[in-house]
């Protein structure tokens, strides 16, 4: 997303709004999410879906209506292959496992693209063929869920801390795509997806570009399979279909155009996180025996609604041009952060009432800020301000935030480009708000 104009990214508004609503509900319903282990396990559960969504996104951008429905079965295929090879003792070392996983993903996608380019069959037929074949062969390799993942992977799926290897994989994948968007290859890819004939007539080597898109998708699927294997720590040949459908939903929700040319890693990630949050929120309501059906119903409805919303996006873009994704990000981020703090502060309030010790301070900072506990009053932030000072500081921060938001809204509206700096600045502001409100609530509790 080299977002030059706000109006191009208007597709991000919908997933962003939804994510704010869902995150708010999720935090209220299940406050456990806001903690080390909560975020850690959330990342690990969401990672396979996110990476599978990236793969679909890369293919969808390439155009020709390429929706690789076989992405789920392919993921399961790599999963059961890795587990089977591990059980046979052939391939156990981390390097070899990564090589096998990425290799299978890329090999399959190369086969896919050769079918499209040389045999010239519609992509949907190739995807259908791959879906059937892979679903069948998965059950041959591993008839039922079971087996063990490689030993070195066993600690990956615990989710006790945020900084797990899974997060590193996610960051590398996301960053890799963002770096890729800087290349001219990406420009060619988008052009080909948007109008293949125009790209061909203007001299783009469309065969090579298409092969490139599939190779990238293959790498993403390989990474997704590794994360999935780490998550379930065994092999499961049966989850492919569900994963396909969920990933397709996430891609659509993330504003990626299935007809090609539009989409990005941010949207895909937002879509995948949305679907994870839907599952999380629904899990907090206790539906008993019909839980799975309710989830199914909601996935279906969300898929339909998000598709229908893409019809509304041009209208939104026309009338609400002054709201840009960046400003929405700031406003919604503040609201959600507020809700998070409120919930956590209530927790802390009760905890403080019970314990009535100073230990709760460290717990609180570690809880909200996901920072190491600061001990009694020392460390990271100077907590020894008077109440007046704190209030003043709070007002100042709020005023700065307001001014900044307005300023950015205006700037975005007249399409002035902002860079990475803005993201950093906004996130640091939100972080400041976190600290302040947390500190204030703590101050209220302590006397």
């Amino acid at each position, binding site marked *: 997303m080299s977002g030059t104009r706000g109006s191009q990214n208007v597709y991000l508004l919908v997933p962003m709004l939804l994510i704010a609503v869902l995150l708010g509900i999720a935090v209220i319903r299940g406050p456990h999410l806001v903690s080390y282990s909560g975020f850690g396990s959330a990342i690990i559960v969401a990672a396979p879906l996110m990476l599978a969504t990236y793969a679909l996104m890369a293919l969808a951008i390439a155009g020709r209506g390429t929706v690789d429905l076989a992405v789920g079965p392919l993921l399961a295929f790599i999963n059961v292959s890795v587990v089977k090879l591990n059980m046979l003792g052939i391939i156990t070392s981390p390097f070899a496992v990564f090589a096998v996983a990425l290799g299978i993903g890329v090999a399959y996608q190369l086969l896919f693209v050769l079918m499209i380019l040389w045999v010239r069959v519609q992509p949907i037929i190739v995807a259908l063929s791959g879906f059937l074949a892979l679903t069948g062969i998965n059950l041959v390799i591993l008839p039922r869920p079971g087996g063990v993942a490689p030993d070195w992977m066993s600690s990956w799926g615990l989710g006790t801390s945020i900084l797990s290897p899974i997060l590193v994989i996610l960051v590398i994948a996301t960053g890799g795509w963002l770096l890729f968007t800087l290349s001219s290859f990406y420009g060619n890819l988008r052009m080909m997806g948007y109008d293949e004939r125009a790209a061909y007539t203007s001299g783009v080597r469309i065969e090579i570009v298409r092969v490139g898109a599939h190779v990238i998708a293959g790498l993403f699927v390989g990474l997704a399979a590794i994360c999935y294997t780490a998550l379930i720590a065994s092999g499961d040949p049966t989850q492919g279909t569900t994963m396909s459908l969920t990933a*397709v939903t996430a891609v659509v929700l993330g504003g990626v155009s299935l007809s090609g040319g539009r989409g990005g890693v941010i949207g895909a990630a937002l879509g995948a996180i949305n679907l994870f949050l839907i599952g999380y929120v629904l899990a907090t309501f206790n539906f008993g025996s019909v839980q799975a059906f309710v989830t199914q119903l909601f996935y279906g409805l969300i898929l339909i609604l998000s598709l229908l919303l893409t019809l509304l996006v041009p209208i939104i873009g026309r009338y609400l041009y002054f709201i840009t994704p960046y400003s929405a990000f700031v406003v919604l981020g503040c609201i959600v952060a507020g809700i998070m703090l409120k919930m956590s502060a209530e927790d802390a309030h009760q905890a403080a009432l019970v314990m009535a010790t100073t230990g709760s301070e460290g717990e609180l900072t570690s809880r909200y800020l996901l920072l190491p506990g600061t001990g009694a009053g020392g460390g990271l932030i100077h907590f020894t301000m008077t109440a007046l000072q704190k209030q003043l500081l709070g007002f100042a921060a709020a005023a700065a935030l307001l001014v900044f938001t307005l300023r950015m809204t205006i700037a975005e509206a007249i399409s002035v480009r902002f860079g990475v700096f803005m993201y950093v600045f906004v996130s640091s502001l939100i972080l400041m708000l976190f600290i302040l409100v947390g500190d204030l609530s703590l101050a209220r509790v302590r006397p």
Partner: protein
Amino acid sequence: MSDTPEMPRRGPLLMPRSLAFVWINLALALIVAAIGFGLGFAQGVGAQLVILYTIISVAVLFGLLNYVAVILESRAAARAPAAEAGRAPLDEPAGARSVWMGNRVLIVSMLLLLFVYLLVTASVPSFRTVTNLIAFLVLEAILLFAFKVSGAFAHGRSAFIGLIVLGALIVVSSFTIDGFLSGANIKAILLFASFLGIACIGQTLVALLGGLDLSIPFVIGAANIGLLYLIGLGVPAGVAFGMVLLIGAGLGFLNGILSYRLQGQALILTLGMGFAVAGLVQILTSIGSSFSGNVFGTVPPWLQNLAAMNGQFFGLAVPPTILLWIALAIIVIVALRYTANGRYIYALGGNRRSAQLIGVSELKYWTLAYTLSGFFAALTGSLLLGWSGGGFIGVGDQYLFTTLAAVVIGGTSLSGGYGGYGFTVIGVLVLQVLSAFLIGIGLKYEWQQFIFGLLILPMVALYGRAPHIRAQV
């Protein structure tokens, strides 16, 4: 078997002009017949029968090969420059390069098949049987036929290939599997083919308009448990049946309306719709029940009779579902070919804009196709309830892709405008006979699925290839 080589002209017997062709064809026919002859005695069939079958097969094969040769000759003659009009097609050694250039895909794929066969034969001792050899030869022949002959049949090329594959499958299966051609087995194949065929009606119509309907399996499953649930509630079975069909049609209508503006993404939208429907129906049926997802009840006898293997139709020992499918197939084929509405569907699928300019409402036919799709999916689900006698949401799962596969294998273009239900019937039969064959030789469902998946690509590659981008600019 008198081969009267009429050198100058081809007579009513369809003899090729070149004598070499006649001898090659005769040799091929005799080789195949000899194999059959030996096999017949090896299996202990009566001598008279064996001789009869051998003579018939030689005659049929010889006639067929000659026909093919004539077509090839006439095409070659039509293509050749006027000066070389009289030459025989195969006797030009200087053309070896052009033969290679013209047939490289065929040659490569045949060699590949040979390689695979030799590899498997060399590595698996139990694979070395005569029937496998025959199967291999038949496959090679199919390849040859499909590549060389089908070009002569510009229209209905896919149907031609489909019929050849179907014939080959039946021949191979009846060689390999005891009792394959018994009445009970044929009835079973037809019964399953009619479930799939009825479900495919809607998919074909939608595909003719350039859309896809992936909600079919979910509607089938939902209708299956929904009908049993309604009957369990005390609704009269006939009324419940009608209600389920109406709801199915309504869901299809909703699919059509919602996807009208999103035609490129109809695939995904119907998938979402199917998901939602299956979830909703399961929630509804599990309220007040301790068995979530499973519905219990008694299926009325008339519904069981309609679809069960031992069903009766006015004394005939044929399940009425098969006859229903045949009737529906005739109606749909005739309606698509001869009624104005049917032609409008082709017109819309072929070119939206020109169809609209002559006053064909796109919205009307688009929603109509989806409505019919939902209706027939619900009908299939209800019939499957009669067949199985118990409700199960997953009963439609295998139809998610087999409906698509049948349409695609039959030769209906997924981009619309070309094909028809007759093609789909061939596709359905190919799939079902193949499935019966695979079950017969003891393969599990997973392997079947794998083979289905691999089968689709070459079938489509034979006739469904898109033009190169440089031809589209």
